[in-house]
């Protein structure tokens, strides 16, 4: 019988992917203390942390699947679903609020035609909220594919997105 509770599905068994994940765990000495680093590395390699790899990690680290599932779901960084080609994060914490980030958030969502947490239909851009990027002296702050953007406005972000899409 198919066990389809979260974290327990392995219907999409993928030996190549699982081999990659096993290798990542080995690189971290199969140490349970390194679980967060392992999840980061898995996400970097696969783009997300699918349910299917949780049992692979659990076995390598000698943890229960519940423990691995619990860690993946606790931290905002880890995603069970693939993201778009580019990830745009907009800071919506206090210092950026003081510089009008909510207006910017609304205009970005409108121009991309998606809500925060969603990906554009063409799979190009995922829009996410983040709470502080440590650039509070140059608010509002955003991050595109890990690159910090200061004094963000609709124009600055549109330019950065166009450059990213063009592969620059």
């Amino acid at each position, binding site marked *: 019988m198919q066990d389809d509770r979260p974290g327990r599905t392995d219907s999409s068994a993928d030996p190549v992917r699982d081999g990659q994940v096993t290798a990542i765990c080995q690189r971290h000495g199969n*140490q*349970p*203390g*390194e*679980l*967060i*680093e392992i*999840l*980061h590395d898995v996400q970097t390699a696969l783009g997300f942390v699918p349910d299917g790899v949780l049992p692979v990690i659990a076995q390598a680290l000698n943890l229960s699947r519940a*423990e691995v599932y*619990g*860690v993946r779901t*606790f*931290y*905002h*960084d*880890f*995603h069970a679903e693939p993201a778009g080609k580019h990830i745009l994060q907009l*800071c*919506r*914490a*206090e*210092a*950026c*609020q*003081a*510089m*009008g980030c*909510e*207006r910017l958030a*609304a205009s970005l969502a409108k121009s991309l035609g998606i*809500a*925060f*947490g969603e990906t554009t239909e063409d799979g190009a851009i995922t829009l*996410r*909220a*983040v*709470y*502080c*990027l*440590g*650039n*509070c*002296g*140059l*608010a509002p*702050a955003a*991050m595109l594919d*890990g*690159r*910090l*953007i*200061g*004094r963000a406005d609709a124009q600055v972000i549109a330019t950065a997105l166009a450059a990213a899409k063009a592969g620059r």
Partner: protein
Amino acid sequence: MPNTVDIYVPCDAAALSVGANEVAEAIAREAAARDASVRIIRNGSRGMFWLEPLVEVATAKGRVAYGPVRPQDVAPMFDAWLGGTAHRLLLGPTDEIAYLKNQERLTFVRCGIIDPLSLEDYEAHGGLAGLRKAVATPLPQVVAEVLEAGLRGRGGAGFPAAIKWKTVAETEASQKYICCNADEGDSGTFADRMLMEGDPGSLIEGMAIAALATGATEGYVYIRSEYPQAIATMQAAIDLWEAAGLLGDNVAGSGKAFRLHVRRGAGAYICGEESSMLESLEGRRGVVRAKPPIPAISGLNGKPTVVNNVLTLASVPVIIAKGAAHYKAFGMGRSRGTQAFQLAGNVRQGGLVEKAFGVTLRELVETFGGGSATGRPIRAIQVGGPLGAYVPNSQLDLPMDYEAFAAAGAMVGHGGIVVFDDSVDMAQQARFAFEFCAIESCGKCTPCRIGAVRGKETVDKIIAGQDVAKNLALVADLCETMTDGSLCAMGGLTPMPVQSAIKHWPEDFRGRTPPRKGSETIQIPAAE
């Protein structure tokens, strides 16, 4: 230009966020095109963010600054240099800029001056003096010196650092740890990031001294994943120190081992709480631990562990090198030394201001900050992060002192200062405080987990004008429960911004008021 000229372009994340790399590339291109011999040095930031990218040129009379520089400014700047005229972006000698000149930099003394990845630079500017002295000093004397200096935790709580050290030093164990909390998640703070990117050596040196003093042999720097630049710089610096024999099996010839590792966070705000950070370092969900036992007795992996903030540890080398008396001479009352105040949000001159405790909020926001960025009147200032109070203009003359702020129902915390102009709606800010707590609560204790959700719902009712007086009383009651009954500061301090907003701006909590001009309803999604 005669000979080789040193040009400094910061590689701090804030400077990069407004184009410092593009400026550095333009300088290299322009120099090559003109056959000018320049050496581009990537320093940290001086902490004057409104001037970033701030380019400095070494001259016979010291470094002179230009800023903010855009790539298209570079060619005209070369024209001016070669023609012997002053470019319009010339700010004069960097050290003479009032914002910098009027600071008292002890912890950030090298930040923005040195190449963060040059040990030679580090030592030439006073680095390693503390560690060398600590190696030659009886270890209890090192702890005593830090205690005597009155160094309190810079992460927000202000607990005397040396008390933790003393407990770890005196606890017998097969393994001890030094853990640096670099999970700087509070909005309005960037000092930890700036230091790790601009002068990582002072943090490493502080951790090495803490390790020698307590007998710890392993250390971790837990850095939030939102700081990729800081993570890369810290790792590179640790590698340099290891290669130079300053970390590893024999720290600076002491015969003692200390190995240091960088660990990434994963986007959980609560991991800035020390016990939650320890859980995360052990690879688990960042759920807060009940105390006792305190981490100094049973911390990482159940072993005695020093947990200190970045700036606490980075302040140690100067205390050891120059002595407790030198450090203690700065400050007021029981707040000794300096604090890295961070001007953020709606402020004209955002940046880092290291000053002795006792400086007033007005000096920081008006004299250094230059007032609001939008030019509108300032209405509220949140001090000490999302869990700190909103301070009204009537309290601008409060001195930055742990005790003075506590007496006023506020907190200095880590010195983060977020300025809001008169378009802010304080009921929305109170609502946000609860909502943020609801999203980021680890879920272990009920007052925080449930209280934050109910708090947000109740503020929504107040905003909608539903039974306003009754619901305000309910919020007051809920805040009391959260303050008294939460396990950690997340639930325990969320009431502080809420209650300060209600107390100082009651007009915003009368319900069904038309939104303030320029204000917006904040409907936030969870961080993803």
